[in-house]
């Protein structure tokens, strides 16, 4: 960590998120938060795995889930992770226009993911799969909905950061914020990998 501390005034550092003590603390603190998030999602996955066969009179996972829509959601989130990493590369190169461009693409992809998820949930409710239908349905909506809420928070957060970078420019105060939001966005993608595997694909197998 000390290797990043040699910032020379007036130059754009190699890793602007690590150039100040505040930035380094922000990044480190955010990783601690993500460790807690991992536990939080772990408990929701645990609940889902324990209750996923308790469908009562409601529809089963195999009856509900359609692979094309899950595949589309997966592709959208994967591409948005790639555009988010392009944004961080633009950040490292001090290219504000590129940074904002890639952040906007990321936000738009986040919105399309949310739209797809809302469409999916509405479809399920038409099939009699409500929040209180069965232990399976409650565990499903809690886990997947909680992830969707994270996506919603992410698009809001990144939108606000775009506005702030446009207003105040890219500097050693705003750079760590953008970097940390990108880490958050990748974490959402990582959680989705487990959701499409454990909830949707395993739901189709057994």
């Amino acid at each position, binding site marked *: 960590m000390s*290797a990043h501390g040699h910032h020379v005034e007036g130059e754009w550092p190699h890793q602007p998120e690590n150039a100040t003590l505040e930035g380094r603390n922000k990044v480190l603190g955010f990783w*601690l938060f*993500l460790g807690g998030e991992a536990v939080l999602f772990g408990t929701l996955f645990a609940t889902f795995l324990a209750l996923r066969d308790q469908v009562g009179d409601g529809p089963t996972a195999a009856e509900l889930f359609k692979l094309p829509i899950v595949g589309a959601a997966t592709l959208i989130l994967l591409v948005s992770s*790639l555009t988010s990493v392009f944004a961080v590369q633009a950040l490292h190169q001090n290219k504000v226009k590129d940074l904002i461009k890639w952040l906007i693409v990321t936000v738009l992809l986040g919105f399309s993911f949310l739209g797809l998820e809302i469409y999916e949930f509405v479809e399920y409710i038409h099939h009699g799969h409500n929040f209180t239908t069965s232990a399976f349905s409650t565990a499903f909506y809690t886990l997947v909905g909680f992830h969707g809420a994270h996506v919603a928070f992410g698009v809001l957060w990144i939108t606000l950061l775009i506005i702030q970078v446009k207003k105040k420019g890219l500097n050693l105060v705003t750079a760590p914020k953008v970097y940390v939001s990108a*880490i958050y966005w990748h974490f959402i993608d990582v959680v989705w990998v487990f959701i499409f*595997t454990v909830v949707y*694909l395993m739901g189709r*197998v057994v």
Partner: protein
Amino acid sequence: MASQQSASNHSNRRHKHEGRQKHIVAFIFSIVLSLIAFAAVASVAEVNATFIIIILLVMAVLQVIIQMAYWMHMKDKGHLLPLVFMLGGAFVALTCIVMALYWVWW
């Protein structure tokens, strides 16, 4: 890598910024691993379920490792504490999953 890093701290012009290629490679790997998982489920009629679930979980873990290493920059220097936090989180999460299944089903 270390010498490149210290050299780049001295002059803006000598900054060696990483290219896009490795992130695109990570993206292609993620797509391929996802496709394998989806294809395994689509072919579910012929193969046994336990075998498919093992394939699915292996694909998911591989994809998460690739994404964390490249996109979340965990393979870069100075990421020991983030690694400790994430492994700690994953350990507690896994314990929760095992305990929930144990309490409910055994």
